[in-house]
């Protein structure tokens, strides 16, 4: 089996469907060698420039960096040596692994996305990591089909080949110099493509969106990470930052309250700056565009400064769109925009379904209109749900508070827990009631053209528009309390996105007709026939 796989390397730029086994780009090896050298560098600098004492205590961090770096590089070279891929008329195949040989093949007509990414080391050497997505693999949790890495030129050719872009590919090859990664080259190709009219740009990065991405609870985590990193780095060079801080500032004079204020404000500022920098590096040159190729259209996002990422989402797989508005930032109109699509992993930390960075709602709505078309279903006015839905939420808020109080009542009564625990439990009540009212006001549902639109959510009020022909299972649910209040919850299940989209607490009289419209023709045969006869 290996005999065929280890044939001599064919010319590197020949990415075509001739069925020859190919190696990954040889530049990967140079990157690995450079990585080994770089991982030794911190130790060398520490010893020669700072004159660090040569002992195990001072040198272990540098030794660790060096060992991890070199081992990583060597294993990567071995991986390169044993990885082959080929493209045939019907399939793309990859063989990899030394001890455990893996052979993966993906049928070309099942390919739903071809994404290219580049970390800094790839960008410097003109390499691209290609991830080939076929929906079933992501949903069953298997590792994706990754080619790490090809030259930028080969990656582009491969992408176009697999996404049936052969006609456009020739134009692109003329414009792009395979050996460089200059932004100018990207610009000209992008412009040419735009001139040909097959790329329609929906949104580009506006620097002031950074405001939307600086303030969140994660800022403190970022600050903690940054400060810990600074402390650790300084201490390896023999400087104790904590000592410095106590020496120059008289903490006794400031008092514990002042200290807490300084920690919160200072930590917040450091964290916010860190988050802002992170926003710019990951969303640098962000563009969202619709690329039209033959009879297929893709929603394409490109972003990143040090590491770039391009994601192409087949619009034939798109089932809708959702806009989420986080509770604490609703006053400033913050919105997260995601497409509802099959074959993309929602749990992926790189958020492939997000077609916009977190930003203003007006932009999100504008993009939604251009993606879904006029009139935009997301903009449909959604009538308020019956007041009974508010009553249900108030009852639940009260019940939860009662349970919390009941849980701590006996321990407090016997003195096993301090009295303030009971007060804390009681103080939950007004909070829960307010949350109930907010959650109630978020409710909404409607049918708009080909889409069903539902809105709900307390912490993130999410409006989702889902194509009606994508609904597979439909369910109407009613609890005892809902039955008393004349409410029902209608759920539309689909293969895409979160899999289920719910309209909670619809008036029972309306629920079945909403379900009928949400999944046209599905439940007609199960309607109460007496009612139908009566109608005639």
């Amino acid at each position, binding site marked *: 089996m290996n005999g065929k796989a280890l044939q001599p390397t064919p010319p590197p730029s020949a990415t075509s469907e001739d069925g020859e086994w190919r190696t990954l780009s040889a530049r990967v090896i140079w990157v690995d060698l450079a990585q080994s050298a770089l991982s030794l560098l911190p130790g060398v600098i520490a010893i020669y420039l700072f004159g660090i004492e040569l002992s195990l205590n001072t040198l272990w961090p540098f030794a660790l960096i060096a060992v991890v770096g070199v081992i990583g590089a060597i294993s990567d070279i071995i991986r390169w040596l044993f990885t082959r891929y080929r493209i045939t008329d019907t399939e793309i195949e990859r063989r990899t692994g030394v001890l455990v040989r893996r052979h993966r093949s993906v049928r070309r007509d099942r390919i739903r996305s071809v994404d290219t990414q580049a970390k800094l080391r790839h960008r410097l050497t003109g390499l691209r990591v290609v991830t080939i997505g076929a929906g079933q693999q992501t949903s069953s949790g298997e590792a994706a089909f990754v080619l790490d890495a090809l030259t930028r030129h080969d990656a582009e050719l491969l992408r176009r080949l697999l996404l049936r872009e052969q006609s456009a590919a020739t134009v692109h090859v003329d414009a792009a110099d395979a050996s460089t990664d200059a932004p100018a080259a990207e610009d000209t190709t992008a412009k040419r493509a735009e001139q040909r009219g097959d790329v329609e740009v929906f949104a580009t990065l506006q620097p002031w969106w950074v405001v939307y991405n600086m303030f969140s609870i994660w800022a403190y985590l970022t600050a903690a990470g940054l400060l810990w990193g600074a402390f650790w780095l300084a201490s390896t060079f023999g400087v104790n930052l904590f000592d410095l801080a106590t020496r120059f500032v008289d903490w006794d004079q400031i008092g514990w309250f002042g200290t807490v204020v300084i920690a919160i404000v200072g930590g917040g500022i450091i964290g916010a700056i860190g988050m802002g920098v992170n926003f710019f590096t990951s969303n640098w040159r962000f563009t969202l565009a619709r690329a039209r190729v033959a009879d297929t259209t893709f929603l394409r996002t490109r972003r990143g400064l040090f590491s770039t990422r391009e994601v192409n989402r087949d619009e034939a797989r798109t089932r809708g769109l959702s806009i989420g508005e986080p509770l604490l930032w609703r006053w400033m109109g913050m919105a997260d925009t995601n497409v509802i699509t099959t074959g993309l992993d929602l749990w992926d930390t790189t958020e492939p379904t997000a077609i916009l960075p977190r930003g203003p709602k007006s932009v999100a709505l504008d993009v939604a209109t251009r993606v879904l078309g006029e009139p935009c279903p997301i903009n449909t006015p959604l009538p308020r749900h019956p007041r009974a839905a508010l009553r249900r939420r108030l009852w639940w808020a009260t019940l939860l508070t009662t349970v919390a109080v009941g849980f701590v009542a006996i321990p407090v009564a016997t003195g096993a827990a301090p009295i303030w625990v009971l007060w804390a439990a009681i103080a939950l009540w007004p909070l829960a009631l307010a949350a109930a009212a907010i959650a109630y006001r978020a409710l909404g549902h409607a049918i708009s053209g080909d889409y069903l639109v539902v809105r709900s959510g307390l912490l993130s009020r999410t409006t989702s528009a889902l194509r009606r022909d994508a609904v*597979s299972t439909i369910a109407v649910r009613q609890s005892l309390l809902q039955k008393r209040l004349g409410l029902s919850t209608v759920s539309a299940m689909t293969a895409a996105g979160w899999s289920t989209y719910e309209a909670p607490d619809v008036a029972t009289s309306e629920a079945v007709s909403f379900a009928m419209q949400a999944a046209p023709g599905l439940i007609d045969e199960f309607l109460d026939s007496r009612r139908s006869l009566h109608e005639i």
Partner: protein
Amino acid sequence: MLDDITEITPDFDTGDRMRLPRLRIERRAIAWWMLRAFVLWGVLLAALIVAATLWEPARVWLTAPIVAVGVIFLAKLLVEPWWRYTVHRWEITENATYAANGWLVREWRVAPSSRIQTVDAVRGPLEQLLGLSTLRVTTASSYGTVKIRGLDRATAEEAATRLAVVAELSEGDAT
């Protein structure tokens, strides 16, 4: 704050309504649900009581949970099985699978035959004991599964075969 909202009064006479599915489940399912209550909640209750007896300091914290679990256990043992038996119904037509489930929370669920991906007849250990089977009809949505519990083993297998044929006939990749 909320006074500006116009209230939509539920009018049960004007809205569309769904009829119940035509078929009922096996009476043996009552015994199955009772056994299940023993295995899950009975064991949990016993464990809590044992913990409270053996571990003196924790007793004050365990009183409320023991009462709560005790109440749930009794409800699951004496109320849920009979209630579920009156609610659960099912029906399979050429176009769709329709099931009514639940007790405190009732649910009516319809899955179209054209979107069916897999059909399984599943039997857990307790179900095997009673000769019962659960029919599980899955669609491409991970939440869209229709479960029909408490069927006779032969009935479930026959229904599974019939649905598999229907699913085979419909075209497309069912997403």
